[in-house]
């Protein structure tokens, strides 16, 4: 996987580009936690690929010294899958927002979860569309009033944690941008996990949906005795939406997509030698 290259500090992962985010944006906390996690694991920047979709959080690749792919709206997971399968030696981090991931890109999440590629997917969840100035998103609460819901949101918010557990993600966790130390630990655990690791990170939008006052009182730690291998209990915990539980909800160990791809190659090569003329012979 990632190669150690002497002592890399969080500073090493910063680029010259200054984030375009509003002062006080939760995404700064997520970025700082990412720098810390990367330094903690001594990830070699040349072997790191940060893939994103569109939205405020989509600009993240430009702020991390590595390879990056700023793709199009909602497509972070297919692109990240292609990168990882093409070169399993790369460390792949997919990032995006709640609109990018759960609305336009929602169709890709179940398939990433069940395929289980060895990459992490961080959703910076601010429950609004910040870049288009504050419309309601799939995680906005009912009643949410904004540009496209002048009379209040008539939809139910979705539950990202419950959804990902149901879809079969092999690692599901939740963090908060206002607790960067805990978040860095969580990102580290996600990166150490072998398989598809999903992190929902509450990352408030200070400009269009400032939740800095309402989130902290709802924060809770996942109980110390919670068994992360127990899927039903993890699901029950996820359904307690009156509070925002932080930590790892669920983790299981199972083969990754890339391992499956390698096995298919072995099977195919055992059946027939890898030569074009041998393949030609099948059609004469």
């Amino acid at each position, binding site marked *: 996987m990632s190669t150690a290259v002497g002592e890399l500090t969080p500073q090493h992962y910063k680029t010259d580009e200054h984030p375009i985010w509003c002062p006080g944006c939760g995404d700064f906390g997520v970025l700082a936690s990412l720098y810390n996690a990367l330094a903690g694991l001594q990830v070699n920047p040349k072997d790191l690929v940060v893939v994103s979709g569109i939205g405020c959080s989509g600009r993240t690749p*430009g702020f991390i010294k590595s390879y990056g792919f700023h793709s199009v709206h909602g497509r972070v997971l297919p692109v990240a899958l292609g990168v990882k399968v093409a070169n399993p030696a790369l460390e792949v981090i997919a990032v995006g927002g709640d609109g990018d991931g759960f609305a336009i890109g929602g169709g890709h999440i179940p398939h990433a979860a069940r395929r289980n590629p060895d990459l992490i997917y961080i959703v910076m969840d601010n429950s609004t569309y910040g870049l288009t100035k504050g419309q309601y998103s799939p995680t906005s609460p009912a009643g949410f009033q904004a540009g496209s819901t002048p009379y209040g949101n008539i939809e139910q918010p979705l539950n990202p944690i419950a959804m990902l557990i149901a879809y079969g993600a092999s690692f599901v966790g939740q963090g908060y941008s206002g607790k960067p130390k805990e978040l860095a630990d969580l990102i580290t655990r996600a990166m150490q996990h072998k398989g598809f690791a999903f992190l929902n990170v509450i990352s408030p939008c200070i400009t269009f949906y400032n939740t800095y006052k309402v989130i902290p009182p709802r924060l809770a730690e996942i109980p110390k005795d919670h068994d992360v291998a127990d899927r039903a209990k993890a699901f029950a915990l996820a359904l307690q939406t009156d509070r925002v539980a932080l930590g790892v909800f669920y983790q299981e160990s199972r083969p990754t997509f890339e391992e499956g791809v390698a096995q298919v190659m072995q099977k195919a090569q055992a059946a027939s030698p890898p030569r074009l003329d041998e393949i030609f012979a099948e059609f*004469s």
Partner: protein
Amino acid sequence: MVDYIFRVGGEGGEGVISTGEMLTLALARAGFEIYTFRTYPAEIKGGHASYQVRASGSLLLSQGAAVDVLVAFNEEAYQKHIQDVRPGGVVIYDADSFSPPAYDSTICYGVPLTSLATEQVGIKLTKNIVALGVLAGLFDLPVATFEELLKERFGRKGETVVQKNLLALRVGIEHAKQVKRRDAIRLGAGPRKTKELVLSGNESLALGAIAAGCRFYAGYPITPATDIMEFLAKELPKVGGCVIQTEDEIAAVGAVLGASFAGKKAMTATSGPGFSVMTEMVGLAVAAELPAVIVDVQRVGPSTGMPTKTEQGDLYLACYGGHGNCPRIVMALNNVEDCFYGIMQAFNLAEQFQMPVVVLSDQYLGHRKATVPVPDPSRVPVIERRKPQGEELVGYKRYRFTPDHISPMAIPGMEGGGYVAEGLEHDEGGYPAASNHENHLRLTRKRYGKFVEVEAIANDLVRVHGEPHPEIGIIGWGSTEGVIREAVQMATAQGYSVGALHPKILYPQPLAKLREFMQGTKAVIIPEVNFTGQFATLLRKRFTVDFIQLNKCIGLPFTPKEIFDKIEEVAADVHGGRRAHAAAL
């Protein structure tokens, strides 16, 4: 010279397709050139199915015209196809199923296929093998080849099944001896002694992709492109590649772009409905300057259209699909052999110019089989993308301006090459520059600037058939090449001054070669299997020529006769002084 068309028709599931396939392989192994034509229902079970194969001692350019031998398993097949059988042609019908009317102008041989299969073989399902035996017996086809094929095809099902099928073949051959002959069709062995492959357009394309170095494929099932994915799913892992069936077509191209970014040659294949939703990713590949090959095996549109029928209706989408100023290369494949070399060229163009290449095939080409010489990949030297080296990795700029507009592309894992592949407008370094107006013009010029070199290649890749400077010119694209070529041969034999030009790259167009070809023509015909004349429309933007369109839009390919008739009509106008275009070239 042997040149016969066989057609088998019957209820789907009766073994029509396998009869056709075995006949095709047997004829190919016997040394004939073959050219199949398939039309089948969109439904899986039931419905009418037919399979046509033309066999000849020399190169075949089209599916041909009238049928010489029709095998009708039921009355429906007879009714559907009898008008295509030439007068004096042979009809072999299942006498247990129906009897054709007595006034028929064809030679009809009634064979009790069903009862021969039930009574002499003991298995009703073998009636199609009995029919093969009858064909072999009647028309002097090499029996040993059929026996070999049956052993290969049924070997895995065990010796009993093989023996039953060999018995069915013999029953058919024996029965043929009792037939009172009124026809003179005899094939024997074909003239070709060298081994050739029997490939469909889709298979040939998939093989060519492997030869070009494609090691990543992502796709979503869609008729008539699915067999490309299935072929590669079987073959690509053998050479260390992989195939992913993604959740939709957007994900397919997304994964292809991710893999290409990570250094792999990657491809997807789809048909119109899939390509429609892929266009956002075409734009991303253009903006981020990523090599990618996107194959569109066209079918009838719009929307779901006619999934199993052929059309050349996606050219506008291929050239212009997507928002913004969005240059991509569009190519079209011409015949089964060309699918192999053409897709190799597509990968080369994608790698060399770091842009998406859309490759147009169609149902007619993708699903028909032909004998092709064993491909020689060395005929298309493989090109790899330009990568940064040494000094270039110091202060590396991914989108650095260069004289040929192609910037060295770093691959993740390269020290010093880190950059962000950007869909946002960006500067040379890849940094977002969404508010820098002058920079946008520079980057747009950079992306379009590659077309200068692409157009030069496009000029090298045109093919001309018949007269190079004709009175009546024909310009075609894609799978119509063979049919046009045959029509040109027919017209030349009648004394007409005719020539045809067939570009391989349709966007950007080979303007110099087109201009040169049209100079001195009195009329230019553009035949297309679509309603509005999409290529003619593209050419009208470039040339003030009064192009004569010939459009066919019934889900079926042209026949050479249809194009020949148009040549005659146009020639009559030209010689009658009713047409002499003053082309402003």
